[in-house]
């Protein structure tokens, strides 16, 4: 049985839906999105099952043209895990967003509703493409798909502040894209191929490739918002509507991060760059500490959650020096790799839940000033519980997905003899606890009920947010063997 079409369909389904959304209009697009969600989720789960069962990546050569002339799709364990994560988070936010961006029958099309659904589908398509495409230029098109879709999501409400945030984001993102493209040109010039698997065999440390990886990494870090290139993120992620913030923080920044992984441990497999990896992790550590401290000082809830994203991105980069320091096939390397990816997955669920919960609170209160959310614990206990559960995962309290990720990274750091990263992980956890506690304490205080809107927009919104938070916690109950999926198809393991 040839499963090769599964990744193709996983990409083309949201692309086709996005294209059709334009002539269908807001209401048609909404209904089509909801119809497409279960199919996309089934495709993602199918890919994960096949990869797990066969223990090998799924391949597909488009048009039967083999690389380097043609383009190949390749879904490995990392792709499978992130595909499922993406499908679930997209589905949750789509259900959540109906209350805000739905179009009742007979109602006239609204601008926000017209834009939201195709943008959501485009982000889904872009991330799926980034996960399965194996060609550096196809990946560039995926990056642009993400950038184009994320920018209007930031400024969907059309206020001056969000428009400025969107412009700042666009400038960072476009610079990041062209730097990436420059690297593509250099790599092709040096090797004559853009296929990642072929590159992992052909790259021998040519100067053009090293410079290319450097500029591409810089460009992708600007899109991932790793400190010090994070300045655009807090206003952009805090200004978007709640469903948009959830998608942006949970998924969009992961797209460019996965691409960094593909470059460092795919294209440059077997070419360790320990010095540069230490710098990346150093930036990551700075992001964890400074981002958490900034989150502690925020007066507004959505900005606090956005700064928490700046901090949590930092953890993703701790895996780089650990992987560079030990043999690829070692247990420590497997732990570092798994820890990094589980961090990406559990942060996706936890942060989506957190932004949705913050959005529900902001909608009820009509503001998101942390000092004035007293009474939330009584009026919306489920929402506050969601926030707390997601916070537990971000802190890394056992048993949760965040704990599994941080524990794996911590033990890998000690195994690799780089104990200083372990200190950063522990310190970051404490600071995270601080800002989560701040919100919970404020919410549990008694407050005036009169300032609140009488009823929530829809109960399903609370259910969806709580579901995401529970998943981020339940990930911690998975037996370690389940994470074996993530090792499938690691290019740095290839002989």
């Amino acid at each position, binding site marked *: 049985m040839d499963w090769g079409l599964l990744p193709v369909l996983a990409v083309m389904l949201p692309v086709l839906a996005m294209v059709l959304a334009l002539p269908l209009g807001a209401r048609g697009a909404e209904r089509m999105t909801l119809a497409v969600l279960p199919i996309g989720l089934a495709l993602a789960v199918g890919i994960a099952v096949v990869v797990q069962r066969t223990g090998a990546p799924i391949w597909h050569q488009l048009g039967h043209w083999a690389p380097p002339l043609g383009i190949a799709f390749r879904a490995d364990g990392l792709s499978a895990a992130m595909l499922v994560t993406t499908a679930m988070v997209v589905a949750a936010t789509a259900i959540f967003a109906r209350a805000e961006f739905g179009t009742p029958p007979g109602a006239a099309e609204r601008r926000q509703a017209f834009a939201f659904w*195709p943008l959501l589908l485009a982000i889904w398509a872009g991330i799926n493409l980034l996960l399965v495409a194996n060609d550096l230029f196809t990946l560039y098109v995926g990056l642009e798909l993400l950038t184009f879709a994320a920018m209007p999501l930031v400024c969907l409400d059309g206020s001056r502040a969000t428009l400025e945030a969107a412009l700042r984001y666009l400038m960072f993102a476009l610079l990041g894209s062209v730097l990436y493209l420059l690297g593509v040109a250099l790599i092709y010039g040096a090797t004559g191929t853009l296929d990642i698997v072929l590159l992992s065999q052909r790259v021998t440390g040519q100067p053009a490739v090293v410079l290319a990886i450097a500029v591409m990494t810089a460009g992708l870090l600007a899109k991932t918002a790793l400190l010090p290139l994070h300045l655009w993120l807090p206003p952009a992620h805090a200004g978007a509507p709640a469903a948009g913030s959830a998608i942006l923080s949970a998924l969009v920044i992961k797209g460019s991060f996965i691409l960094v992984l593909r470059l460092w441990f795919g294209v440059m497999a077997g070419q360790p760059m320990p010095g540069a990896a230490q710098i990346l992790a150093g930036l990551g550590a700075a992001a964890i500490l400074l981002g958490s401290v900034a989150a502690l000082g925020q007066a507004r809830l959505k900005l606090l959650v956005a700064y928490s994203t700046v901090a949590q991105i930092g953890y993703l980069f701790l895996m780089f020096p650990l992987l560079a320091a030990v043999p690829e096939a070692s247990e420590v390397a497997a732990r570092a790799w798994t820890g990094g990816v589980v961090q990406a997955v559990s942060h996706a669920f936890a942060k989506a839940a957190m932004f949705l919960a913050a959005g529900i609170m902001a909608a009820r209160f009509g503001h998101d000033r942390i000092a004035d959310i007293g009474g939330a614990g009584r009026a919306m206990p489920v929402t506050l519980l969601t926030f707390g559960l997601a916070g537990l995962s971000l802190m890394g309290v056992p048993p949760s997905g965040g704990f599994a990720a941080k524990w794996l990274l911590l033990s890998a750091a000690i195994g690799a003899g780089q104990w200083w990263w372990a200190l950063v992980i522990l310190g970051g956890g404490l600071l995270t606890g601080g800002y989560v506690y701040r919100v919970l304490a404020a919410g549990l205080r008694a407050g005036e009920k009169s300032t609140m809107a009488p009823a929530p927009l829809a109960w399903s919104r609370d259910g969806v947010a709580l579901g995401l938070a529970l998943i981020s916690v339940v990930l911690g109950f998975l037996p370690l063997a389940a994470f074996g999926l993530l090792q499938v198809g690691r290019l740095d393991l290839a002989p």
Partner: protein
Amino acid sequence: MIADLLLAAAILAVAVASILARRTFTAVALFIAYGLLLSLAWVRLSAIDVALTEAAIGAGLSGVLLLGAVRRLASRAEAPANPPPGAAMTVLIGIACACVAAALGAVILLLPEPAPSLAPQVAANLPTTGLGNPVTGVLMSFRALDTLLESAVVLLAVICVWSLTPDGGWGGAPGAAQPILGDGPLLLLARILPPLGIVVAVHILWVGKDAPGGKFQAAAILAAMWLLPWMAGLVAPPRIAARWLRLTVAVGPVVFIAIGLAGAVTEGAFLAYPPGWAMPLILVIEIVLTASIAVALALLVIGPPVPEP
């Protein structure tokens, strides 16, 4: 060689002048010159297809877009921008950028000899597509996925631009109202040129299968032939709520995806063409895609609806 040196020097001079220009109008005018000179460089690099695209899109449509933006921003106070970097900082940035350029130049000089190339593979496989133009072969067969995704990106860009419609403008005709010209040279041009331009575009699309040309270049010319009467106030664009307008933009990518999926069913690979059917299918895709991209490019230049104040 001397001609190349002069050309390169001219391009660099125009680029430097453009970023140092005091007035945005001057900068954009220089940028258009930059695009035109660049298309000469593309000819010198034996990339005629790219030269045509650069002239039509890089200089032409981008120029119209930026000039329009300059005009609409001219009547407004400039946004309170961030303060410009200080002299020391500017020098520092300059040195850093020079280092980037120098490193890049050094790496280019160090590229391997003989250069790795896919030209032989393209030449060997081109006959299966029935095409004569290798670039069209790459775009429509070997790397057809990129072209498909790119047409989706252009459609997405239209959605994004429309999503920036100010309150009260949703559903209306896109773009700022153009001044009504009773008479004048632009009006004359807008009347004479479109029929000619359409003939040229069809020609470029048709020859694209064997010679330089193809859908992007043809679509850019067609878009220009719509923009010209629009700027002259001769035609008003249709409302963005118009179903047929949205269908036109979407039909190209939809047909492309449908043919790709048909290949997955019959040939077992997405975007595989059945033997002997490659050329007619590619022609169908090219024609439909030209229409969609032409409308999309024009809509991107025209911009979102602007409600009357």
